[in-house]
């Protein structure tokens, strides 16, 4: 028994479990909780009422609380915190938790639970929360003894933020919250956990092996993902340093956008299913690939059998289970992206072997030819607004404004256009649901971002279908005067579903038309926000400018071309060199095989 707990044991207990929870949150640096009250968590709400250190943001649906905490976490690098009640409160949070798990976002979610003596009795608002959330969290706890309470809260934050970050649930029975409980401080950082010890510093022998391989590379690529963002802004800076040191081209995953500046001449765009022509052909044709903090996701690799067939691969990841999961690699390196990049820079400089400069110059000439295809070009003609043009103008006008800008998205075509046409120069400015693909993510995530960055410009690039999945959060925006901008690319379709139906299902648009849409301008007004609309190209810039100038929540309803498809596209089951390009552009037009149709 440690000195602190001995001390605690002999002291008369003065704090309720709920007060212990709040004190532990405060010690963990929590400033904001996103939540929704209910019977089982009333003791915590009572404790919140009687203090000022932690601010509570009342959402309108528990799923939104989790996404808001995700936006908060991803834009700050801190752990997001959520508080929901038992039963339906917890089950509503599940989608958000799994979203955070897939995208490695650090969260701690406190869920209420029926009192310990009622657990298992099918009590009112009882759910087996730890059972339900087990595969949706990095770890979860059910606190059944008051003595464990403070320790569990501290441990939950440690688990959420360390290693590969992720969501952690703490299920809190109501009697544990009401009964007196001892407080114990967080263990010192140096004291390791009994069983959980993620590796962060890389094995230098592996780093040297990787650098030796990269020095020999004639057609290299750096493929950087969300691991660089999670490591912190320093890792993104080191990624730029390493790229400039080596002269290698850099592509980012969807989760990695902003890890490398989009304006950097060595940036070749996003890769994957809707990545650029040049990025995917570089991946296909490279001889050495450095995967820095990405996970060879199926959206990135396309058909694994034909994925980058001629390359030797180095995979740097903090999660050993991500390595050799989908793609076999020659050099695995387990560790934190920032630490690995720092080590690579050091070894590269020490190593006397010169890189293959001539071959690299030849590789860049090839890349420039691919770039010359200008795969993201589109033709904006006439009155109808092309969705790509809407995003491009949004990007250009926000850049001109010079304001610190954060972008969130929902899921679908608009998300891919945002990824393609909005450039990011810094990490933590781009929040999107990558792994789980959760429609309804963007508005609550934007809310969380705006809470963390009250003076910044926060825009949710949305589709008219996705936005309706968490539209109730307009009320939260209004209550807390959060001037989030919702920029809807309204094509009256679940656009990505419609696109797949066009390309794969004979144009039978089964249930993908957005019938009976609300009037988004009036909808915004009814939530005490501002509604704007552009139906013709000539109105677009004015609407964007007015939106940016408005210091209140705004919905800008942008009517865009209804049948526009998102290109380039690697059809399901195809390889990187079988991209479909937009109309008027030649490319490998691969037919979709039956095997491909099975894939999502």
């Amino acid at each position, binding site marked *: 028994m440690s000195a602190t707990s001995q001390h605690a044991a002999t002291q008369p207990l003065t704090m309720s479990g709920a007060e212990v929870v709040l004190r532990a949150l405060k010690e963990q640096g929590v400033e904001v909780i996103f939540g929704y009250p209910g019977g089982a968590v009333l003791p915590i709400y009572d404790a919140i009422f009687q203090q000022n250190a932690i601010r509570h943001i009342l959402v309108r649906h528990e799923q939104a609380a989790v996404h808001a905490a995700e936006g908060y976490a991803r834009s700050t690098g801190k752990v997001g915190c959520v508080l929901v009640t038992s039963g339906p409160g917890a089950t509503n949070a599940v989608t958000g938790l799994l979203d955070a798990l897939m995208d490695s976002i650090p969260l701690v979610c406190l869920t209420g639970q029926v009192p310990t003596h009622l657990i298992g009795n099918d009590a009112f608002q009882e759910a087996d929360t*730890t*059972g339900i959330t*087990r*595969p949706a969290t*990095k*770890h*979860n706890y*059910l606190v*059944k003894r008051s003595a464990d309470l403070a320790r569990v809260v501290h441990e939950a934050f440690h*688990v959420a933020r360390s*290693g*590969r970050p992720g969501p952690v649930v703490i299920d809190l029975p109501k009697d544990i919250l009401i009964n007196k409980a001892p407080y114990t401080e967080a263990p010192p950082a140096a004291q390791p*956990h*009994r*069983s*959980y010890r993620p590796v962060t510093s890389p094995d230098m022998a592996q780093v040297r092996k990787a650098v030796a391989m990269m020095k020999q590379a004639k057609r290299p690529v750096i493929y950087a993902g969300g691991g660089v963002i999670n490591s912190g802004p320093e890792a993104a800076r080191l990624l730029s340093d390493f790229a400039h040191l080596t002269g290698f081209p850099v592509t980012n995953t969807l989760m990695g956008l902003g890890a490398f500046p989009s304006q950097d001449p060595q940036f070749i765009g996003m890769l994957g299913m809707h990545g650029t022509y040049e990025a995917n052909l570089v991946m296909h044709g490279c001889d050495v690939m450095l995967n820095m903090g990405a996970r060879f996701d199926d959206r990135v690799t396309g058909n694994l059998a034909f994925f980058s067939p001629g390359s030797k691969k180095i995979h740097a990841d903090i*999660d*050993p*289970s991500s*390595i*050799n*999961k989908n793609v*076999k690699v020659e050099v695995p390196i387990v560790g934190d992206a920032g630490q690995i990049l720092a080590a690579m820079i050091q070894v590269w400089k020490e190593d006397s072997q010169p890189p293959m400069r001539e071959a690299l110059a030849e590789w860049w000439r090839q890349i420039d030819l691919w770039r010359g295809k200008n795969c993201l070009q589109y033709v904006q003609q006439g009155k109808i607004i092309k969705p790509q043009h809407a995003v491009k103008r949004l990007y250009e006008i926000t850049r001109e404004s010079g304001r610190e800008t954060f972008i969130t998205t929902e899921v679908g075509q608009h998300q891919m256009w945002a990824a393609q046409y909005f450039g990011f120069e810094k990490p933590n400015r781009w929040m999107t649901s990558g792994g789980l693909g959760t429609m309804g993510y963007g508005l609550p995530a934007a809310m969380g971002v705006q809470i963390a960055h009250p003076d910044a410009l926060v825009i949710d690039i949305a589709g008219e279908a996705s936005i309706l999945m968490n539209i109730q959060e307009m009320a939260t925006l209004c209550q807390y005067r959060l001037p989030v901008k919702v920029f809807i690319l309204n094509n009256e379709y679940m656009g990505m579903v419609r696109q797949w139906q066009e390309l794969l299902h004979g144009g039978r648009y089964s249930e993908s038309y957005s019938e009976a849409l609300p009037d988004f301008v009036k909808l915004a007004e009814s939530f005490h926000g501002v509604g704007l609309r552009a139906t013709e190209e000539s109105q677009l810039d004015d609407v964007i400018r007015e939106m940016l100038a408005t210091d209140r929540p705004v919905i800008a309803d942008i009517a865009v071309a209804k049948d526009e498809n998102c290109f380039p596209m690697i059809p399901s089951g195809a390889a990187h060199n079988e991209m479909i390009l937009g109309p008027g552009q030649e490319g490998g037009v691969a037919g979709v095989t039956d095997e491909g149709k099975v894939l999502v």
Partner: protein
Amino acid sequence: MSDNLENFRSATIAVLVENEAGVLARVIGLFSGRGYNIESLTVAPVDEDRRLSRITVVTSGTGMVIEQIKAQLDRLVPVHKVSDLSLAGPHLVRELALIKVVGSGEHRVEALRLADAFRARVVDATTESFVFEMTGNADKIDAFCNLMRPIGLKEVSRTGAVAIVRGSSALTV
């Protein structure tokens, strides 16, 4: 595909875990959620003072899948150590079985004869039944059960494999 089939192997994996509520559910959920095979799984506390339990799981898959299973197990928060005994070198695998045989006359005599040959112990007897206890690897128990079937095999209860590496090296925290 042929490559995958060639790499297909069985693995006996020992996992040292915190002896706490829910840990077995985490392990089993991992196998079912990710579509891994479980051929057998055993669990029991092995060190009360240090709150440790040991899980032995016999699984099969391609080399890549087995590596995944180990990495996925290792990243569970309450998991201390994961060891692939199939790769760790020579190791012992044992299973305990309780086997009930019901019959009369010549069948009873034959059952006892076979039990003797397999070194199975009689742990319960009535005038019409025996319960045999035997330990061994899975093949030995399979063979015994198959021989008992025509004689009157009624019920079998098996533990699944437990395993340990030979020699002085040990899996500890």
